[in-house]
């Protein structure tokens, strides 16, 4: 049985891109304790990405390696959700160096980890034994990420007027990007058919319940929206991914095969 490589890359790229975004807070966290918490989340995600890239490299054979997959592919080859590559600030900021907004970071981590606890849970029964093992490890890490993000979502939503307004703005900004979760890409379809992947569509009621429950507790409202559904997972990205990759990949490309 052949494991659909593109599906594994989708999972790996999700993890590495969000890991890189969370790592941008390293040394800049709002308080020391949160700085460490986010670095932990980031390292968990990068660890998940490494395992997945290693699995892809194993399946591809030849000179494929985790480093080559992470550092020597360009933006159009990445299969991550567009949600995960967005900068840490709301819309209407035309430049990447804007002040990071912690609410945006937290809401994004919440929306993604709420999905991934369900995905990893299901993937523990994947027909691909390697992926099932990665899922068993990742589901624990992701449960913690969800707990962390949900806790802050509620604290900020049910906090001061300013924290409420900022976290509501982040929810309004990011929620439309979650529509991408529910479309089926060719890679996902093939992987589901091969019993390697879980059908994300079937997870939607559980995800909706988790999100609605948290938003209600946080006294936040869930926005309605219609319109363009992003397609990062088929390689059509926002302009932000290129900048993210330029930073993430620059060292490896300047010193190919460097060891330190």
């Amino acid at each position, binding site marked *: 049985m052949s494991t659909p490589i593109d599906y594994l890359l989708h999972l790996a790229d999700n993890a590495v891109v969000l890991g890189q975004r969370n790592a941008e807070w390293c040394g800049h966290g709002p308080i020391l304790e949160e700085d*460490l918490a986010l670095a*932990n989340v980031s390292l968990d995600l990068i660890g998940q990405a490494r395992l997945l890239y290693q699995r892809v490299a194993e399946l591809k054979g030849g000179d494929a390696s985790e480093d080559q997959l992470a550092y020597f592919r360009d933006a159009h080859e990445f299969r991550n959700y567009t949600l995960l590559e967005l900068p840490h600030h709301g819309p209407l900021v035309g430049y990447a160096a804007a002040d990071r907004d912690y609410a945006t970071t937290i809401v994004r981590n919440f929306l993604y980890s709420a999905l991934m606890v369900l995905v990893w849970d299901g993937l523990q029964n994947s027909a691909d034994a390697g992926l099932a093992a990665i899922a068993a490890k990742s589901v624990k890490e992701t449960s913690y990420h969800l707990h962390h993000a949900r806790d802050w979502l509620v604290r900020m939503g049910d*906090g*001061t*007027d300013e924290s409420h307004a900022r976290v509501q703005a982040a929810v309004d900004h990011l929620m439309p990007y979650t529509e991408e979760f529910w479309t089926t890409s060719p890679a996902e379809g093939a992987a589901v058919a091969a019993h390697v992947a879980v059908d994300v569509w079937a997870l939607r009621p559980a995800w909706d319940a988790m999100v609605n429950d948290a938003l209600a507790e946080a006294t936040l409202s869930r926005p309605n929206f219609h319109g363009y559904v992003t397609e990062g997972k088929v390689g059509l990205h926002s302009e932000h991914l290129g900048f993210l990759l330029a930073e993430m990949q620059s060292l490896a490309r300047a010193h190919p095969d460097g060891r330190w």
Partner: protein
Amino acid sequence: MNTPALKEWPLWEVFVRSKQGLEHKHCGSLHAADASQALHMARDVYTRRQEGVSIWVVPSASITASNPDDKGELFDPAADKIYRHPTFYEIPEEVGHM
């Protein structure tokens, strides 16, 4: 909502029990808004290298500490009472290592 934000979060003392250890040991302190948050932060700050299997957090304000200025009257009187140490007993051979 409409709760005024605190300028500074309260301080918590963190106690961690290691895998081998029987008792929780003080390992440091941190700032957190409340007890459950303090627990999670303690997990991230103090158990990243598998240091522990159990965490306690205690509000630092709940700890009553002895005054360093009273060190003399509190502790010095014990200095010359060597008979309080159990070092004057012969341990029988059959007891072995204690």
